[in-house]
């Protein structure tokens, strides 16, 4: 019961934050709403007994990514006139909703019709750092290494792209 209440509260924050993000006209409010939904998402991970994912989401998505985005917003320091006006935002959102609705509706209908499974109890150490680590470094070690390469590439790419001066 109490878990349901938590779930619906978190879902409210998650969806509210997400909708706030795409409707807000000022970038800072988009970022604030995005932060709200990311924190709610980490709460969802906690509800799913994924304790390490919960912490990783807080640490990376909220702590690092939001901070980085905010830092970019602050450092670029865009004055009001450079922010796109988007005069027909409502209409554009409606159009987007029209395009997105069939896809989402399809998933929702399919899920509701055919998906009846429910959660089974999981072992005590499910989702903890130790067990996730063991899985990561046994069955998933190749993807892990590839991701680390990707991260390195992204790091180098980010440095190269954002570097000042001539690129000839």
């Amino acid at each position: 019961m109490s878990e349901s209440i938590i779930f619906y509260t978190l879902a409210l924050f998650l969806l509210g934050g997400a909708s706030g993000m795409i409707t807000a006209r000022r970038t800072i409010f988009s970022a604030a709403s995005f932060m709200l939904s990311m924190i709610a998402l980490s709460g969802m991970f906690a509800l799913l007994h994924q304790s390490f994912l919960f912490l990783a989401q807080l640490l990376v998505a909220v702590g690092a990514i939001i901070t980085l985005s905010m830092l970019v917003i602050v450092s670029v320091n865009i004055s009001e006139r450079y922010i796109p006006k988007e005069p027909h935002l409502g209409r554009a959102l409606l159009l987007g909703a029209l395009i997105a609705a069939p896809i989402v509706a399809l998933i929702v209908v399919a899920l509701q019709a055919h998906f009846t499974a429910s959660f089974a109890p999981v072992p005590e150490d499910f989702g903890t750092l130790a067990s996730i680590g063991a899985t990561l470094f046994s069955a998933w070690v190749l993807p892990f290494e590839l991701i680390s390469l990707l991260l390195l590439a992204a790091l180098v790419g980010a440095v190269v792209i954002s570097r000042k001066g001539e690129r000839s």
Partner: protein
Amino acid sequence: MTPLHFLLLSALLFGIGLIGVIARRNLFVLYMSIELMLSAVGLMLATFSRLRGDEGGAVLSLLLIAIIAAEAAVFLAMIIALFRAGRSINAHDFTQLSQEQNA
């Protein structure tokens, strides 16, 4: 509270992210919408992981968070570079692939 709830939530989240990508022109919002879609996938993976009692899903979700971080680094660097080149963060100002025509 069944897996269905989580999956529906993840679908809705993905839809909202999609709407953002289609409708908005602000590069920051575009970037956050893409992150949102990726996070929706992460939620789905975590749900299936919990449902099957298999930690592979959680690991995938974790790797996804790493990808989100990589994407954030590249995208934000791109925003800085684009703003420096065109004094704009309007996605519609960058319709040309070549640098000269944009500036």
